[in-house]
């Protein structure tokens, strides 16, 4: 129910500027993901939105109202923390009901009803009487999400909620969160992660942050297809986009030529030749690494299991309409 607007937000800790002027609009009911390398300020930005951290300068608006000075509990937000942050001495029920009990004017029955509703949504009703230490990591994460749902927030904030889970559970919980978003259309969600796969799969829109500044905001496909900079091009997509410089780039009239592994074709008359230095077989597809006199080996993604012995030569060509051309400043030439 809330749209969030950030106007020239800055944050410094002492002399260190962490957020250097961010303008951003998060729409009502949108799933926005903040992504970027560690130290880019994405968690700080989330904490500024939550109100846990003071804004140094700039304006933060919820539904058009300035909330710079408002305490977290009055912003209508709920937050899911990286370490779950459950109260260890309270049962699951008490954990979920704590916020409601602190709000004045909630009857016992009303609290029970809301907690149980949230517990049913996440299928944790049978655990309500347990203590957090009696639950597995995945169950704890559900309780943390449940605690947030119980508060019936307008804005849902996630701070790297999956990073403490193992790989299989991460995928399952990711799907869970996606389903949760579908079921709560009017709730705005902001999700911080350093994992671009999570970002691509969950987000309505992604905000790529770098060094305290917004690098690009857009839908996952926009970022994938039309990156605004070399940084975004390299950060989004797996395997990482190949960057070629020198003669090979000049042939395409640019300083740096970006080609994704999946947009390389192996052909006998390919325009580039490289030596196979390594092959990674992932089953569904194969990554072939080629030495082509560039700074890093060039990766080619091929469908199915392929065999290319190390040392052999391979000729490849980029798909002409899928190359990304960048100028000296790292900006795209379109």
């Amino acid at each position, binding site marked *: 129910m809330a749209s969030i*607007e950030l*106007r*020239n*937000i*800055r944050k410094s800790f002492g002399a260190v500027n962490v957020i250097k002027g961010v*303008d951003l*609009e998060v729409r009502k009911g949108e799933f926005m993901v903040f992504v970027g390398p560690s130290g880019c300020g994405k968690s700080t930005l989330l904490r500024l939105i939550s*109100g*846990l951290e*003071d*804004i*140094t*300068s*700039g*304006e933060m608006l919820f539904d058009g109202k300035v909330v*710079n*000075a*408002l*305490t*977290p509990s*009055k912003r209508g937000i709920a937050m899911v923390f990286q370490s779950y942050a459950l109260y260890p001495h309270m049962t699951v029920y008490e954990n979920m009901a704590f916020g409601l009990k602190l709000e004045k004017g909630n009857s016992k029955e009303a609290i029970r009803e809301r907690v149980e509703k949230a517990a049913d949504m996440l299928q944790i009703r049978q655990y309500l009487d347990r203590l957090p230490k009696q639950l597995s990591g995945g169950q704890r994460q559900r309780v943390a999400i449940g605690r947030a749902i119980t508060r019936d927030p307008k804005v849902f904030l996630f701070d790297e909620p999956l990073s403490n889970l193992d790989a299989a559970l991460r995928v399952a919980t990711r799907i869970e969160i996606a389903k949760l978003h579908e079921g709560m259309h009017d709730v705005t969600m902001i999700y911080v992660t350093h994992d671009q796969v999570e970002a691509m799969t969950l987000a309505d829109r992604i905000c790529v942050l770098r060094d305290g500044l917004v690098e690009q905001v857009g839908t996952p496909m926009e970022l994938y297809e039309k990156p605004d900079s070399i940084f975004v091009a390299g950060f989004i997509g797996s395997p990482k986009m190949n960057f070629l410089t020198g003669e090979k780039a000049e042939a395409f009239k640019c300083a740096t030529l970006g080609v994704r592994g999946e947009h390389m074709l192996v052909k006998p008359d390919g325009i580039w030749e490289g030596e196979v230095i390594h092959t990674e077989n992932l089953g569904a597809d194969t990554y072939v690494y080629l030495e082509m006199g560039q700074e890093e080996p060039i990766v080619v993604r091929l469908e199915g299991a392929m065999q290319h012995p190390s040392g052999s030569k391979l000729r490849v060509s980029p798909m002409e309409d899928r190359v990304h051309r960048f100028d000296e400043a790292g900006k795209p030439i379109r």
Partner: protein
Amino acid sequence: MATDAMAPVGTAATPKIRSELMLQRVRAARWFLVPMMIALAIVAGWPLTRSIWFSFTDATLNDLYGAEWVGFGNYLRWQVLESGTVRYRGVLADPDWWNAVWNTVRFAFWSVLWETVLGMIVALVLNAEFRGRGIVRAAILIPWAIPTIVSARMWGWMLNDQFGIINDLGMKLGLLSAPVAWTASADTAMTAVLIVDIWKTTPFMALLILAGLQMIPKDIYEAADIDGVHPVKQFFRITLPLVRPALMVAIIFRVLDALRIFDLIYVLTPNSRSTKTMSVLAQENLFQFNNFAEGSTQSTLLFLLIAIFTILYIWIGKVNFEGGDR
């Protein structure tokens, strides 16, 4: 973007906005700290100030409020006699005071030295892995748990000249040729005090050093073993430097504690000039001999001595109290 036109709202020009949350926390912190600070001001700050003030007056136990200012007279004053000789008076010219200072310093030096050495040995033993380690740790906690007065009484009995077990043991083992009046004789009184203090306080030292030892990663020793470094060399090259911060803190706590020693000496060797320390002398002057102003002067001097020692120690030793900011 549409919002660009409205952008210059919050730039460096706007004053720092403190949020409701931070204000609430700082306000709460203030209210949380005020009672404690008031309590400390009443039980520590004010009495200290008054004690120092008394040292500049002629206050007596029965007339605290009628005290008059005498400047540094209690510390040192002099009088030129008709014969031309100068007579000095005041605490700083009092041989009893200097005797007490000497006793205190001697006691602090030897007790802390022995406690450090023995504490290190006990800590090294406890840091080794062997069966029965729990029992040893429990055993060394006993001297620490026993009240000082009780240890003084217990040892007073054990060191008794006629019926004491120490004399009995010493003679049986051939270490003593005749019973020694440990606590009464001027030659041995300080030794007796040191024995009891070292017995009682070495465990505290050992536990602090042990905590420091346990923070040293084990693989450093494994690496040293592989390099064939002799254990003694390992101790001086690895253990000692790494345990130094913990040791420095432990030593300063012990020295400060030793410099203010009162109870053990008061009970174990009452009225012995060879062990009387600054605290004992000051307490006696304040409340037993009706030399209130003189006692205040002595307590103030002790306070000064300890303050100077602390500052020097922290400054020279670069001790780092993990005190402040997270």
